[in-house]
């Protein structure tokens, strides 16, 4: 049996085990409510159970986070999604376009502008050549820019998707599309879907954790980790590096752990009495929720504390304990998946390189942003690998759209710094681990990186692929709402088979 098969078998076992546990009174009753006659009929006449019924995810409000079985054995157990909010420039990082350099400073040909709409470009802008040097790296010879020197060393671990496209050119709608499958508010985020589908392995930690850096939330706000129409228990729990790591996790001042334990014991003792009185099973689940809350109060601060990490880890990630930084969040993400958290979503704000000031210039601010993430994201892949976790952890990195090969001319005027406008027709996302090909590049853009010419993918395809790696068919993984089954990928999405190992 290969390593992979062993792994799958283990996953399946685990999930089966969890599912047996999950068969609570409710489900038993639901089934028996169909009538024993119905069950017997099925057994006697050899009716097969409806195949869709077995893949249906069950929601038990009393135990909404118990681990569940995916639809089929997936390669990944958890996901770390690194979102660079604001949309980094693919032309200074991954998509090497020497032809664009030749056009630098020339007026944009009308063919690129006819019938197009941009967020800020008006009239005829000038072309802007790549503002970084590129080289090929690793055995895979992937092109990576000088802005990401650390990342260049793991070229042979990742798959680059170079022809991702979207149809939203404003941040909030584009981020929503990327994470919820629609540019409008109100749908569940991918992390919520995954938690709904898989529950969580570690009951002492939330199943879906969100970490933000860059000083701001992503433009679409908390909706990008909201649960939409799924029960609110599946929304992302924001863990914070300042204040309580999880809201309200800290006991009030003056209440020590023993006293908290004593008070939860007292609450549960009284609740036990109430159970004798009312016989309502909800009371039993409340008792277990309070026990869980108590455990969470220990395990969350524990996992959120990076002080005790060895120095070599700090050196590797570039972490600085006590600060709110992307590097700290990346290290936390590794710790969280190690502890069984299903989905860790990072947002780093400040990638909106318009060139309206130095901070948003592709040759100044962007380089600074890269310095802040390059080492840490590279360390994440290497660290997961050295811990044997990379195969079962899918790492995704990207923004909500790309940036124009033209220099932005906001309201028809030259911007003071070199910047690029929002661009929907091509950008780059990379993935690593979780059964994704190593050292692989998929999709091509034209000579100047304006639009995708082959291997074109959309946010829905990224979502379908993530779900696939976790063991879900995005077309049948649904939730009934407003009278119809809803899915993350709406009516679209194709698994990007070419990048799957």
């Amino acid at each position: 049996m290969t390593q992979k098969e062993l792994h799958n078998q283990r996953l399946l076992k685990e999930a089966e085990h969890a599912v047996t546990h999950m068969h609570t009174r409710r489900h038993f009753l639901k089934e028996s409510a169909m009538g024993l006659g119905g069950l017997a009929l099925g057994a006697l006449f050899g009716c097969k159970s409806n195949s869709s019924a077995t893949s249906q995810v069950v929601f038990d409000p009393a135990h909404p986070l118990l681990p569940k079985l995916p639809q089929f054995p997936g390669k990944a157990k958890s996901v770390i999604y690194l979102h660079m909010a604001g949309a980094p420039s693919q032309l200074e990082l991954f998509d090497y376009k020497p032809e664009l350099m030749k056009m630098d400073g020339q007026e944009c040909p009308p063919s690129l502008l006819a019938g197009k709409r941009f967020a800020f470009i008006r009239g005829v802008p000038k072309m802007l050549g790549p503002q970084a040097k590129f080289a090929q790296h690793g055995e895979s010879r992937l092109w990576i820019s000088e802005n990401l020197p650390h990342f260049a060393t793991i070229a042979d671990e990742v798959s680059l998707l170079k022809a991702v496209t979207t149809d939203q050119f404003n941040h909030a709608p584009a981020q929503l599309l990327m994470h919820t499958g629609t540019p409008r508010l109100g749908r569940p985020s991918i992390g919520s879907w995954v938690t709904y589908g898989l529950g969580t392995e570690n009951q002492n930690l939330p199943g879906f954790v969100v970490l933000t850096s860059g000083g701001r939330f992503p433009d679409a706000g908390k909706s990008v980790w909201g649960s939409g129409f799924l029960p609110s228990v599946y929304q992302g729990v924001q863990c914070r590096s300042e204040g309580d790591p999880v809201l309200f996790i800290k006991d009030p001042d003056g209440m020590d752990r023993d006293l908290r334990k004593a008070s939860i014991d007292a609450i549960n003792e009284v609740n036990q009495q109430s159970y004798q009185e009312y016989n309502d099973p909800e009371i039993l689940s409340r008792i277990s929720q309070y026990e869980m809350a108590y455990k969470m109060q220990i395990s969350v601060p524990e996992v959120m504390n990076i002080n005790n990490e060895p120095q070599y880890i700090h050196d590797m990630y570039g972490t600085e304990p006590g600060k709110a930084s992307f590097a700290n969040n990346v290290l936390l993400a590794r710790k969280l998946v190690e502890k069984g958290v299903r989905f860790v979503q990072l947002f780093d704000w400040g990638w909106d390189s318009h060139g309206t000031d130095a901070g948003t210039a592709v040759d100044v601010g962007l380089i600074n942003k890269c310095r802040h993430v390059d080492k840490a994201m590279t360390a994440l892949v290497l660290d997961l690998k050295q811990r044997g976790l990379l195969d079962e952890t899918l790492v995704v990195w990207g923004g909500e759209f790309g940036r124009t090969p033209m220099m932005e001319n906001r309201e028809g005027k030259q911007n003071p710094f070199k910047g690029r406008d929002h661009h929907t027709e091509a950008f780059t996302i990379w993935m690593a681990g979780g059964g994704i090909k190593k050292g692989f590049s998929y999709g091509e853009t034209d000579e100047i990186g304006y639009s995708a010419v082959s291997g074109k993918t959309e946010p829905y395809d990224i979502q379908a692929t993530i779900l696939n790696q976790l063991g879900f068919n995005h077309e049948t993984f649904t939730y009934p709402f407003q009278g119809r089954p809803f899915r993350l990928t709406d009516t679209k999405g194709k698994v990007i088979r070419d990048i799957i190992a």
Partner: protein
Amino acid sequence: MRSIFHNKIVWLSVVLLAALSIFVFATHEQQIDFSTQVKPILNKKCITCHGGVKAKGGFSLLFREDALAKTEAGKPAIIPGDPGASDMIRRLTLKDPEERMPYKHEPLSKEEINILTKWIKQGAQWGEHWAYVPLKPVTVPDISNAFVKNDVDKFIYAKLEDEKLKPSAEADKATLLRRVSLDLIGMQPSSTIAQQYLHSNDARAYEILVDSLLASPHFGERWTAMWLDLARYADTKGYERDGERNIWRYRDWLIKAFNEDKPYDQFLIEQIAGDLLPNPTDAQYIATAFHRNTMTNDEGGTDNEEFRTAAVIDRVNTTWEALMGTTFACVQCHSHPYDPFRHDEYYKFMAYFNDTRDEDSEGDYPLLRNFEDSSKQQLDELTAWLKQHASQQQAANINRFVRTWEPSINSLTADKFINSELNDTKWLAYRNHGSARLKQVDLQNHNELIYRYIAWDNNGKWQIHLDSAAGPVVVTVPAKATKGWQITSLALPVQQGVHDIYITYENPSLKPEQTGLQFDWFYFTEEFPGKTAKDYNAYKKLFWKLLTINVEATPVMMDNPGDMHRASYVFERGNWLVKGKLVTPEVPQSLNSAMPKNAPKNRLGLAMWLTNKQNPLVARTMVNRLWEQLFGTGIAETLEDLGTQGITPTHRELLDYLSYQFMNEDKWSIKKLLKTIVMSATYRQDSKLTEELKQKDLFNKFYARGPRVRLSAEQVRDQSLCFSNTLNEKMYGESVYPFQPKGIWLSPYNGAQWNMNKDGSQYRRAVYTYWKRTAAYPSMLTFDAASREVCTARRVRTNTPLQALVTLNDSAYTDMSRRFAYRMQKEAGNNVQQQIAKGYELMLYKNIAPNKLQALVKLYNEALLKFKNNPRETCEINGGMNEHLSPETSALIVVANAMLNLDEVITKS
């Protein structure tokens, strides 16, 4: 082994007998019911491929006319009366898996095929889905016994009998008091009301209690909290910037409407079309803010028309989901997959909402400017004067313009920009030598232009040209620098008809990239009337004062005047950029409810249709919702969907009975309806679960016991405010900022800060809490409150450890724990047992059981021991030094904190 085998034989014979009896009954000619027998099979097995989304083989089963039409095979698949000739039946029974339907799925069961066969034989009639049939009087089951208190109980009892279940006894007084108070006013009643009831021997004591709760001003606050989810109310606009929106007067309108028991039909008419009522009052305008709670996108670079359209679509979806329990959203892209709504019907319905003034502007126009006190009086004076000195129409126009600044042309609708631009895609802004167009402006008889603008430079001048940028100049205006936005006017030479106008700007003193002038809106009008009157100048001055005075304003609905009319089209496959055929306002055919004869073809007509007694959905939806609020689950569980895919009601006749009653006898009175339900024996039952019920009806579908449900986010907060004696009973006004941890608000490009109130407003009821869409109040969200980006027809209750953390650790709750402890000390003297017993009684109106008391006393003693040796922690848990500070107090605070977390307290029993 033997016994299992034996059992199998027994089962086999039982099952065979059952099957045989089904067969015998089935062959007996029985009328097949479409809704309950046929439609479920079609929905489950056929309609995915042969419905509103897809019609494979040219065959769709959504409407009868489609189903009986010729398919791609050249003949109809259903021949009424002749199942043998009906291809549909043949295809269901074929052996060849390539031919047999459902394609590549399990075949239909014999019984299902049998039903379909007989249905076709009987004529393939399309029955009506129960919820689409207009309400008729319902016969009440003839039951009278010791249990039954009113008609509700007769329906419930009849079903219980069928299920061989017995109802529970009435709950004790303490439980009932708490239950009905939380249900009707969302919190504890005053202690006078409570004590009166508890100590009364009057047989009518409960009814007196109910009446006083219904009369309480807190009633309106509680039911408003429910309605705000439907109205997707928030204090911010949503999307990226999520800036503030001033719309709290709508919340206050709701509170007043619920308190005065505004009949539900009137309640809806005002919210849907208050602005279209004759001479609308301010309150009627404010009511229309219901549909101005849609989101506005202020992110730079966003297409205003796209988000205006999104808001209109949201209004359509919300109207259906909140008021008619129908999932209409899917009809945007195609005919409804399951229910009888056609694709174009969506857009015909949308046409009612599509012709409104709002255009996703940053100012959230149109607004109702709220004049109060002296300015209100002055407005009345002006109105009275105008009646004397202007035509009726002109007087009305001026009145409306002062109150709303409408109907103005928003500068964001400009196009053909040269050296001009929509600044941040919001306002028309000019550089030197700039021009832009305003399309199709009605200039007929208009000799004055009133406009709102900013100028940043003293040297420029702007011009209006007719028909092209180089066209004839109508007027030239010097633009001097202003201090911020300014409203001013200029005289216009009268023009004939409707023109495209081009506004140009010249200011050579500006640098090429420098912006000199920016417009917000333009209002082309006639000059102020009454020139010959001797007090003309005084009233013109008053007009300008009122027009420009800084008053707080609320977004409201307003229709476009004729010359600004916006046409409506079908969006092909739901894509707003691909416009199909032109449509005019119309309601769907399939609801058996025609437009009332005198109804105008606008939102007012729509409101009349909604509240017409023929409308099958509006009363049912509201009754079902009110029932859900009291019992935790609707009679039909899916409040948002009473259609064929919704969960079938447990007591359909009861729902219909109450709905009919609601419209007729109760004259749409919500209070009367609620009273009927809470007076029923069904509602008053004890909620203890017997072993038998646990086995037979865990989810209380048959109501053999009273409701036992976790409290809503609002109730959890409000009752704790009551326990701790901190509740600030002030009503109305701007939203408030109770305690919230730092770092919750971090919207990009938005410096808004959560500044906690310290003036007592931090203790106001949950319904007044400031609601920011992208970062809603976290402790309420944890208890399943909706973030209110879009309409939430039903909250799903969850039970998670994060909820425990809120009531254990949230500073709002630790503060309330302290004050609750002080109250126990104050009201019960020095004995700890008495203090805790008192606290328990304050919460639940009953004596604490000895073993519960023991558990809490034990906690107290452990805490006391700790604090006696630990002055610092003693002080910390007390929140610092004050007159209460002592180890005993701190120990009691720990107990109070635990008591706020008891299941009995978090749950309504």
